[in-house]
């Protein structure tokens, strides 16, 4: 065997050494995991983190599952567009890989959101900004939820006038829900009016209490959990402990709201799966960071009353299984 023939052999033999070193790496055979951690900022619409508890549980679970480092930010003032705008730029500056936002339904927010979306993925949680295209949303069908609640109301309450209590949520979700309730009531030929709730908590309580006491034999509909809880407390405080006295319907629920539902102070409530919304927002954000398009995600909702609230499905939605 000539040296000319031996050299290629030796050369190939030497190639086995880097191949062995390459194969000996630990990460070669472990299934490819999503990289990370992903810095994701969640910007709420309100100042109370309590009302976001269930959403946050879903967010925390998703953060664990998808290796995300989540900053959960509440506002100093409910529905503050300017604060949301400044938070958007601050979080981007701080190196967020993705933004999950429960946007205030305001035109002012459109441009900052569009600019942010050019830099990092932006996911709208529970609601969106009306007229803004291309913003991925994780939410239930708020219009359909409103119509379902109206249908429940119409089924149980015949002929009573309806007052819709409008909190200052400023979200597209509330607007859509309102549209759904109104359309449902209109379709059923039911007369209804709206009552604007003050922003301040104490004032809001007094206003609704006054309204309830003033309008006996009226059905009240609250379009968000906090308004519903306020109205229910006011009703309870007025001694209207039966379901038939100033029946109260609503969308969204707090822990106290659940007790009030069980006490029949609240007749029925439409609840969306907030745990799923929180979880899917983070999943969608991580997918977007990894250039996977999940599109808009529609989560389910349920109409719950005191008789079905401990049914398996309602139980799972009202009482997140958290240890």
């Amino acid at each position: 065997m000539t040296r000319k023939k031996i050299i290629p052999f030796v050369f190939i033999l030497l190639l086995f050494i880097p191949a062995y070193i390459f194969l000996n790496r630990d990460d070669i055979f472990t299934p490819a995991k999503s990289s990370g951690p992903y810095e994701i900022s969640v910007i709420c619409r309100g100042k109370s983190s309590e009302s976001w508890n269930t959403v946050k549980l879903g967010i925390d679970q998703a953060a664990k599952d998808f290796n995300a480092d989540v900053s959960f930010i509440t506002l100093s003032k409910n529905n503050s567009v300017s604060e949301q705008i400044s938070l958007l730029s601050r979080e981007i500056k701080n190196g967020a890989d993705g933004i999950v936002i429960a946007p205030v339904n305001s035109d002012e927010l459109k441009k900052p959101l569009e600019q942010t979306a050019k830099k990092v993925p932006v996911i709208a949680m529970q609601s969106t900004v009306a007229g803004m295209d291309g913003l991925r949303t994780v939410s239930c069908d708020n219009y359909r939820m409103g119509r379902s609640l109206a249908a429940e109301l119409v089924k149980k309450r015949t002929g009573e006038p309806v007052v819709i209590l409008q909190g200052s949520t400023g979200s597209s979700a509330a607007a859509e829900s309102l549209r759904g309730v109104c359309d449902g009531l209109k379709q059923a030929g039911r007369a209804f009016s709206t009552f604007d709730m003050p922003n301040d908590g104490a004032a809001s309580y007094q206003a609704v209490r006054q309204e309830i006491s003033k309008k006996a034999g009226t059905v009240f509909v609250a379009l968000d959990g906090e308004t519903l809880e306020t109205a229910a407390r006011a009703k309870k405080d007025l001694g209207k402990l039966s379901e038939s006295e100033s029946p109260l319907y609503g969308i969204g629920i707090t822990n106290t709201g659940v007790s009030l539902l069980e006490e029949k102070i609240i007749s029925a409530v439409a609840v969306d799966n907030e745990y799923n919304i929180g979880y899917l927002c983070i999943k969608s954000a991580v997918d977007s960071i990894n250039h996977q398009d999940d599109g808009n995600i529609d989560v389910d909702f349920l109409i719950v009353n005191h008789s079905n609230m401990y049914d398996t499905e309602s139980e799972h939605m009202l009482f997140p299984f958290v240890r």
Partner: protein
Amino acid sequence: MHERLQNLLKKNRNFLNRWSLQFTIAISFTIVSIAGMAAIALFLSMRYNASSMQLVTESNTRIVDQVNLNLDTYLRNMMRISDSMYYRVIKNTDLKTESITEPMSLLYETNRDLLISLGVFTSNGKEIAAEPLAQLKKSANVTDQDWFISASAKTENLHFSTPHVENLYVDPDNKYHWVISLSRYVELTSAGSITHGVLLVDMNFVGIEQICKNVDLGKSGFLYIIGADGAIIYHPRQELIYSNLIRENNKAAADYEDGTHTEQFEGQQRLVTVKTVGYTGWKIVAVAPTEEIVASYAQFRVFALFFACLASFLMIFINTVISSRLANPISALENSVKNIEKGDLDETKISVGGSYEVTHLGQTIRSMVCQMRKLMDDVVLEQEAKRKSELDALQSQINPHFLYNTLDSIVWMIENEHYQGAVTMVTSLARLFRISLGKGKNIVTVADELEHVRHYLTIQNLRYKNKFRFSIEAQPETLGCATIKLIVQPLVENAIYHGMESMDSDGEIKIRAYRSGADLYIDVTDNGLGMLQEQADLLLSDKRASVRSKGSGIGLKNIQERIQLYFGKEYGLSLYSEPDEGMTARIHLPAVLWNERKAGEK
């Protein structure tokens, strides 16, 4: 079939024959070694796969057994609490006169880490006592609760519910608790009479979670617990299942027997180990995705493949080296043989080297070439001898004495006007030369040779004035046989010069050609002085090789050599003689037809 197999083998052999020896050896050894390596790698990887599965199965079984033991202990604790409450408190209390609240409170406080609440209810759902919260919710409908229905339906058993939200008591903090309810049918004593009721122990779900959550089943493995109907009791991702974000194969697992099973769920193959928890009928299910097991198997497989490749590569290298060491000397030898074919008989150029056998072969070829060269030298010498003898024979035709004497005789005859004799002599001389020079052939027919001799004798007879007689006889079958040109005439010449010269007119020369079997004989017999046989023998021996007769100048030895050069050693010339009796010179040749010989030569 057998024939087809043989044909196939033959084809393969032919196919292999087309390749060089080195390539055949290298490729054969390489194929065999790679096949061996592949078989070993395959066998090892299969064994590794099987043993990995076995290890995971055994490990999961051990873990599940341990969890089962812990869970069983936990549930038995719960049952002991229920038993204590029933047998030590309720059974010993007449509710009419005594309260069970205090001992119940004591029992709750003792086990408060494990419990959410304790409660005793009458058969119509009325609360008798409860801890720690005592106020029932207005909406609480005890008799409609699953745990109450189960306890009332099967009075002899303890019943474990699936996880649910405890919804009986008013909690001022609006907290809710996920619990597992242990309920049992109890007998209540009130004013000496026995009534029925239900004892409820709401277990804190955290207790079960703590048993299960720290179980290590690998990176992706996990463990969950299901009820007898498949409902999930514990799952590490229970909320995700409750929220329909993920699913679990719990309904199918409910039908599994205890042991290890393989299942396919949502495109994932999983190794599932199941163990039924005593009394409750719950099942502990340990799940290990085979992907994770296979990941280490894949690592092993790749390494097995890597080392098989490395070993195969080394084998190829070694095979190439060995085959080249084997084949190169043979190849060099082949080139040497090619050179020999081309005529290069230099034995020093023949390659001798390599293995013992090839070295020996080279040496043998070298020796063979030596031999061949010697033989060729011999042939050259033989050919030279032939040419020399032929030259000698030719020279006899221009023997100046013979020519001079013949021409002198012709002149003499013409001068004496003996024209007829002169014509005859000239004619014979002319024919003599024509035959002897004719076409340069060395092999002629016996007829031509005898004709030549006849003319020679005619000339000599005229010269010697009929001092002798001659006769030529030939069997007809000998006439077409082949003989060497000019071998009879020198014998006749000898007979004339040695036998006839001293005789007056009674000399006689007889020439006879005859066949005996496959042999041809031509005898030249004279009745001259003759000689002793010993002397005659000496004429043909080497000692007289250079002896020449004084007549034609061509020795008998020359005839002998020429015959043997053309026909072999077994043929030749022999002399038979006795003093005063004359001599017979016998030519011994093979009886081969001239035509056949010519055809053979062509």
